[in-house]
């Protein structure tokens, strides 16, 4: 299927606070493996936290949430942290619905600076 404006785009930037992974587009059963691969790769680097910027994610479903939980646990097993930083309203809403913004050991939801 050809790329559309909502196709997933992931960029990584190393900053002083950690590996910032910026995601743009839709996170679902089709695209979550792409994010899983990036997070697995990041798990093998340094000791800094992996900070997800989901402010340009226009859709997220349970498949993508499960990817975040599994990636977070893998990072945690390696002594690293997965943090969710900036996020779109859609992401914030789904995190709230599933209560993953409050109750998960897999990742930390940071105060949204937005």
């Amino acid at each position, binding site marked *: *299927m050809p790329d*559309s404006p*909502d196709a997933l785009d992931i960029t990584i930037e190393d900053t002083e606070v950690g590996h910032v992974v910026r995601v743009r587009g*839709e996170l*679902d*059963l*089709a695209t979550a493996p792409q994010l899983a691969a990036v997070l697995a790769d990041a798990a093998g680097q340094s000791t800094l936290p992996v900070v997800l910027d989901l402010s340009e994610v226009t*859709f997220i*479903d*349970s*498949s993508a*949430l*499960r990817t975040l939980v599994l990636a977070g646990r893998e990072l945690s097993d390696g002594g690293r942290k997965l943090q969710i930083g900036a996020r779109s309203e*859609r992401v914030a809403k*789904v995190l709230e*619905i*599933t*209560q993953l913004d409050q109750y998960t050991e897999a990742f930390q939801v940071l105060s949204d600076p937005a």
Partner: protein
Amino acid sequence: MSPRTAPSPTTTSFELVLPPDPELLRVVRLVASGLASLTALDLDAVEEVRVAADELIATLMKASDGAPVRASFAVNGDGLTISGTTRTAVTDFLPDPLTERILQEVASSHEWSTDGDEVSGQIGHALSPSG
């Protein structure tokens, strides 16, 4: 004289038959939100329908043994219903807990059923604000 009942509202319905390819979830979301936008639902409710449709059909695609997923869309004066069914090799089908939590929030109703080697699901979204 017995009270007259209002005529049944027109039902619009159609069906999609999809291979269990997750790339096609975008099509399902587009169709669901497009249909919902033809109703009196507000933008937040249209988004809820989009999310619910994705969770329903993604669950069936994961359960499929490779058989197509038949997705039925229907809307009438009361609400919008999306149903799906597929063949599965899973003998102990259970939807993901995260899917269940999301559907409890975004759908007015949802249910799953199995019958032999078929698994089905249905979500409903009422058109009234009380949802």
